[in-house]
């Protein structure tokens, strides 16, 4: 199964990964439209934790899947083909149980304009083109897609 390895000593703290993550999960796949027309600022699934020796981190795809057990609706599930933990935002009711269970703080609450709520987490860009946008955007090789 493929996961994203993070070498924090190579993270230059630029935050590009956040921008390209947001764009790659937008309908338009265009950064400017994603931020302005689609109002997706802050929906990045990878977060830059600033400060010296800071780094960007996203879901670590834990093998023991604490969020899947915590999920009361079954929306948080292991995708059989890729083995990745993915949240079906259509099924999710936004109860945040997964957020209370995620040991790495990598699941995030999201409120649509119309009030619907669901949890956001990294899906290794399987919903997009399958090639993680953060890995491609990282200027310094801090994020690498590895077979585990």
């Amino acid at each position: 199964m493929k996961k994203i390895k993070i070498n924090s000593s190579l993270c230059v703290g630029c935050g590009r990964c956040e921008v390209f993550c947001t764009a790659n999960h937008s309908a338009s796949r265009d950064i400017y439209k994603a931020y302005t027309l689609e109002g997706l600022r802050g929906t990045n699934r990878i977060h830059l934790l600033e400060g010296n020796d800071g780094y960007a981190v996203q879901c670590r795809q834990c093998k023991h899947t604490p969020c899947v057990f915590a999920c009361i609706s079954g929306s948080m599930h292991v995708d059989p083909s890729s083995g990745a933990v993915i949240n079906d935002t259509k099924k999710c009711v936004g109860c945040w149980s997964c957020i209370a269970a995620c040991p790495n703080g990598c699941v995030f609450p999201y409120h649509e304009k119309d009030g619907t709520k669901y949890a956001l987490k990294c899906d290794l860009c399987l919903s997009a083109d399958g090639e993680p946008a953060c890995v491609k955007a990282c200027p310094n090789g801090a994020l690498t897609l590895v077979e585990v």
Partner: protein
Amino acid sequence: MSISFQMPRYEVLRREDRCVKCRVCERQCANLVHRYDADLDKMIADEMQCVNCQRCVVMCPTRAIAIRRYPLEYRENANWTERAIVEIQRQAEGGGVLLSGMGSPDDKPVYWDHMMLNASQVTNPSIDPLREPMETSVMLGCKPDSVTLGADGSVKTKLPPQVRLSMPVMFSAMSFGSISLNAQKSMAIAAKKLGITFNTGEGGLHRDLEEYKDAAVVQVASGRFGVHTDYLSAGCMIEIKIGQGAKPGIGGHLPGRKVNADVSVTRMIPEGTDAISPAPHHDIYSIEDLRQLIFSLKEATEYKKPVCVKIAAVHNVAAIASGIVRAGADVIAIDGFRGGTGAAPTRFRDNVGIPVELALAAVDSRLRKEGIRQRVSLICCGSIRNSADIVKAVAIGADACYIASSALIAMGCHMCGTCFTGKCNWGIATQDERLTRRLNPEIASERLVNLLSAWNHEIMEMLGGMGLNSIEALRGNRLMLRGIGLNQKELDVLGIAHAGE
């Protein structure tokens, strides 16, 4: 003091229809130019700090930023140019010596651009490097004039120690201290992979780079920083730094703030002290002293390593070179006035020294006239920008070329020329850990390998085009050059004919 008259040198142009206020530029600018203003909900820029290093331009996800010269429209005046005026303003306020990084940007002739290369037409065939072997490997070192035979008729002469290069290029001296360990390590990795050498510069050999010592040229400069027997025997060649093209005649000054624990251990100097390389070497006041130093270094390394002497290209460089050969040097590096630097007084950088093309031609011709050209290899350095420059240098008479600025640019340098500030946004000319981490040696060394593999292939193509299949046959082959836009004097010094002759 009253207010400063100095205006920004650059202006930040931000395309509002592209900027998504993601603050990448703010996080990446070590000069604190960009800032997100919450009240205005906009990114704003303090142009005064901008040095046009292009970090923000490159990193901006939506390419929303462009940097332009600040529209400082002083009245046109070919004599009192904007630069002349601004430099007076700076000194009128700073009161100090103007410092600059990188090679001289002056509008003085670049002779490489005035020489054209030959190519075979019908009378002899060009050679296709894809079909025929093409040799660009070089051996640097002293070579005897002839070979003596043993009783059994086989060659008895033993070659003095040589440095073998896979191509006529080497990374020039940039010390650990003036540049980051990551930058030096990238060149070390690339050098080992390419089969060429990197140069420790005046900063000693960092313990992390001992793994690459076979590809290291270890420099002995007037400060003797980091020089000990293991250091001397570690490298494949020892280079005595007499001069540097960017600042002939003066020493070097690494500011104390750059001398952190790591630098101080490697250079064997107390942490935080300014690293001054005096000029001249305190034990070299004339040519015979140099001879003494050369042979003491050879003794220290049991004559197993060639010794190179690096000099700046100055007016009587030919005579100097001849003396250096007779002083026992195996290799001479000639650094032209365009040579780069982390920090040099602007006046020296722009007004002292001569173009390397002319210096190289003069030295090569002089050594041949004195019949001692065989006893040294010549390295040409001081702003080699591409593989054509290298081919022309070899045609004039160089064995190989040092490159530094080209290597830095390959690793990310954008020639902003403010290396001495220590805030290099590309993680090269700095010791600030937050910045040095921006240079991943794996990625940077791959870029260097790409660059020089491309150059080597271009050299092969140009050689083949001239009907040559080995770099030795190009060395000193001045018939392969023709001058354009040069006067007869310049042609004579270069020893080449004018195009059309």
